[in-house]
Every structure is written in C-alpha cells, then in structure tokens.
C-alpha cells in the first residue's frame, strides 16, 4: 500500500469512529428511557388524573392537554403556512417584498423558543387578554411552527414539474385553478410530512407554553379553549425539578410517554412520505 492509501484508511477509520461516537449516545439515551419508562407505564398511568401532589396516579390531563395544544397549533399555522408558501412559489415575483418574506421565514426559524414564549405572553395573554390558555399557547406554538411548514410546503410545491402548470394554464385555467387543482394535490404529501414533523416538534416544546398555556397542576380536563392545561413536556419539567421527593419511576414514565408520542408522529410522517412516493406519477 502506498502512503496515500494508508493515510486514507486511517482518515476513514477516524471518521467512522466519530460517527460511532455520535450514534452511541443517541442509542443509549433512547434505550435508557425505554427500559426505565416502559416498566412504569400502565393503563392506569395513561388514563388517570394525577393524585397526591402528582406523586401518584396518572398523566391523563397532560396527554390530553398536549393533544389539544397540537390541534390548536395545526388549525392556526397550517392555513397561513401553506398560503404563504403558495404565494412565494406560485405568485411572487422576485421583488423586495418576496425577499423580505424569505428573510422573515429564516429569522422566525432562528428565534429562541423562550422569546416566542415572551412574545406570546405580551401579545396573546396580555394584549388580547386571552389569559393563560389553550388559545394563547396554540397561537404561540403556531407562529413558532410557521417557518417549518412554509419551508416544507415551498419545497413540495417546487418539486411539482412546471409542465403541470403550463398545461393547465394553456387550457385556459386561471392561476388559482391551476394552483388548486394541478399543483397543490401533488404537493400534498410533502406538505403533510412537513406539517406532522413541525407538530411533533411543537408537542415537545416547553419554553413557549411556560407562560402562555401550561398549568402546574390541574387534575381535570379543560372546559374551553380559554382554560389552562397541563402539557406533557411541562409536566416532565415540573416533576423532575420542582417537586421534591418525586418517585423517579413517574418521571421516567412521563418521559417515555412524551418520547413515544413524538416518535409516533415522526413515524406517521415517514409512512406518509413512503406511501405517497410509491404513488408518485411523474
């Protein structure tokens, strides 16, 4: 072997080692949570209210709270996200306004989640007087999810071949008819994948709901969208830092349920992607 070949073998081995160093902790963390969590999870844990200062009972209200928050987030962010991506890809000319939108998307994606929390608190909780509520939390999470949805939708729209539009337009369809019937349906899989991913991220976020939606301890279901709710990530934060002598099994079980929920959503998005890729017609 020449010196150059030996150097290549050594270098590739080092790169392999680095990749190994990255992968091992990921596997360990997942295995650690699953091993300790799965034994503590039971039907009662998932379906009952917390009791005795959260040290006993289940996390049912937190699960429902997180579901409600994700649903609210989806309802608020999906229309705006999809429409603004449609604007960017289908309607916009390359002018200052368009560039500003693109720049804003980049910046929204970089703003720290706690800053979204502060903003949500002043705008929704205080200024609009929604109070600490599902509504305020969902709106805050929705603005945070917006850049991911816009980016995913944009990519999905761009991947629809230009010929689709040309044929539709040449047959006399209007701009919107073309977008609605010849572009959006084919971009839908990409949009769905991106949306589910962004929602799974929203489900795991704690900082934006700290002051806008989350209740420390509320062993009942919310009555309306202006109620506070418990939420899984905030609950995990509370029981692992704020409650003394918390039985560690409950924390593990909560972490397990949260991770399981987030992974489930990720799997849904992967399955959606695979399903539609098979049906792709061009």
């Amino acid at each position, binding site marked *: 072997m020449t010196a*150059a070949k030996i150097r*290549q073998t050594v*270098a*590739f081995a*080092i*790169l392999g080692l*680095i*990749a190994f*160093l*990255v*992968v091992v902790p*990921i596997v360990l*963390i997942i295995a*650690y949570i699953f091993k300790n969590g799965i034994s503590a999870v039971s039907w009662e844990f998932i379906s009952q209210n917390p009791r005795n200062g959260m040290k006993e009972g289940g996390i049912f209200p937190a699960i429902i709270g997180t579901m409600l928050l994700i649903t609210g987030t989806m309802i608020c962010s999906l229309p*705006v*996200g999809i*429409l*603004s991506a*449609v*604007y*960017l890809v289908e309607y916009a000319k390359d002018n200052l306004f368009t560039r*500003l*939108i693109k720049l*804003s998307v*980049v*910046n*929204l994606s*970089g*703003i*720290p*989640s*706690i*800053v979204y*929390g*502060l*903003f949500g*608190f*002043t*705008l929704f909780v205080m200024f609009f007087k929604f109070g600490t509520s599902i509504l305020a939390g969902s709106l805050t999470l929705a*603005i945070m999810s*917006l850049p991911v949805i*816009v980016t995913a939708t944009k990519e999905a729209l761009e991947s629809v071949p230009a010929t689709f539009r040309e044929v539709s337009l040449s047959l006399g369809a*209007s701009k*919107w008819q073309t977008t609605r019937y010849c572009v959006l349906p084919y971009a839908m899989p990409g949009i769905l994948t991106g949306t589910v991913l962004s929602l799974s991220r929203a*489900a*795991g*976020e*704690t*900082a934006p709901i700290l002051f806008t939606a989350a209740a420390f301890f509320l062993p009942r279901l919310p009555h309306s969208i202006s109620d506070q709710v418990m939420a899984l*990530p*905030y609950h*995990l*934060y509370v029981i*692992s*830092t704020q409650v003394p002598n918390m039985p560690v099994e409950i924390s593990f079980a909560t972490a397990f349920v*949260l*991770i399981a929920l*987030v*992974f489930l959503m*990720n799997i849904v998005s992967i399955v959606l992607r695979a399903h539609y890729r098979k049906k792709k017609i061009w």
Partner: protein
Amino acid sequence: MRKRPSEFIIELCIRLSGFLVIAFVFLIFLFLLKDALSLFASHSVGSFLFGKNWLPVSDPASFGIMPLFLGSLYVTIAAIAISVPLGVGTAMFIAEVAPKSIKGVLKSLVEILAAIPSVVLGFIGIIWLGPFMRNTFHLSTGMCGLTGSLLLAFMALPTIISMSEDALVGVPRSYREAATGLGATRWQTLWRIILPAASSGIIAAVMLGIGRVIGETMVVMMVTGNAPVMPTSILQPLRTLTATIAGEMGETVRGSEHYFALFAVGLILFIITFIINIFAELCAHRNRK
C-alpha cells in the same frame, strides 16, 4: 380577463399570508422593544449591557446581564467545540465514506436525535449525566456549565450534520472527477477538494448550530445549576440568558422593573439570533452559487 370574486378573495388571502409572516417578525421585535425600553427609563443601557451583577430582587435592584451573557457564551463555546468536529466528521462519513445501508441507519438516528424533546434531554441530565459529571470531575455539584454544554452539543448535532452533509453532497461531480482523474485518493479528494468547496455551506451549518445552542432554554435551565454569578469556569454552576427568562418570568410582577428587564434580555437574544441567522443565510447563499 376579470376574476371571479371567490378567486379574488383567495388570492387576497394568499398575499395576506405572505404579509403575515413578515408582520410576525416585526411584531415580535416591537413587543420586545416596547417593554425593554421601559427598563431603560430607569436603568442606563450601559449598566444593563456591562453590569456585573444580576440582582433583580434586592434593593436597589441591579440588572447587569454580563454574568448571564458570559454564561451563555461559555456554554455555547464549549458545546460548539464538541459538536463541530463530531458533526462535520459524521457528515463527511455519511456523505463520502459510509456504504448505503449504514448511511440510511446513521441518517435515521440523527433524525431521531432531532426529534427528542429538549426537556427529555434535561431530565437525562438531571438523573444521569449530572451525577456522572460530579463523580468524574469530583465537583460539589454536577449541575454545571459543562453538563449543559454536553447536552447542547448533542442538540446542535442534527442541524450541523444534515446541513453539512447537504453542502458536501452538493459539490459538483466534475470536481470529484477532475481530482480522481489526476490520481488523488478518495480521502485526498474529500479533504483537499470537496471540504473547501463546501466550506461556506458548512459554516452556515455551524452558525445555525450556534443559534440553536444560544436559544435553547429547557436543558440549560434544568442542568446548569442556575447561578447568576460571573462564571469563572465551565465546571461551575452558571446561568444563561434563556434560563433567566424562563426561570424568573413566573415570579415577576407585571410592569415591574424586573419584568421589563426580562424583556430586555429577550430583546438581546432576539438580536443575537437575528444576526447569526442573517450571517448563516449569507453563507448558505454563497454555497448555492
């Protein structure tokens, strides 16, 4: 050709949505600025930016963010020092070395890491990494800057790996072919040709990684010990800008100086991440050319 009214309305909505995205950035900035300015009515900007004491509840209160800023800086530098070599190395391995089957496994594992909620990593920090660090470095508490940095490094990895890999894969084929044609080994091609050609994309990846680390809240609040003092070592408890807002917001009285000070901290965070993102975008743009 005249448009039907329904079409007119939907096109109006589309334009409005585009406008909303811009409006949100401005609104966030304005609402932070509005409350932050109320602080500067009674405290000078200089004493806020360079003050060495963060004593929000003592009398007289003092709002110097230097300890918090340095806390963020220490934690970020350590996290990036760990995650850049690991992340770029892994990206190189995925892009150029790994066989297809391993590539798929690695990419899915990185996606899984990206999906883990930060509060779960914080929990792992409390229950396992913190005690481990205490025993390893013989510290009085494992809840210190380095514990946070290690977890943050892992949170920045998915961003750095996937963006660096995109940049590496995006280098034109002709570069590779020319190098191979001149007799370079795959490693020489990767190290001398592809890596430099992808450098601006990789820098963009690192910048976005830094942005994620600075903005991360839950992990640092849970594991770095929450001590708002001037940090002297990464092995000490410290406190970041983000953790200060998250930790103290619940205890403030609305409209108090303390409340305004937390918005001023939020404004600083907004400005820092804004600059980082613009810079990253410029680098990414150059890479695409």
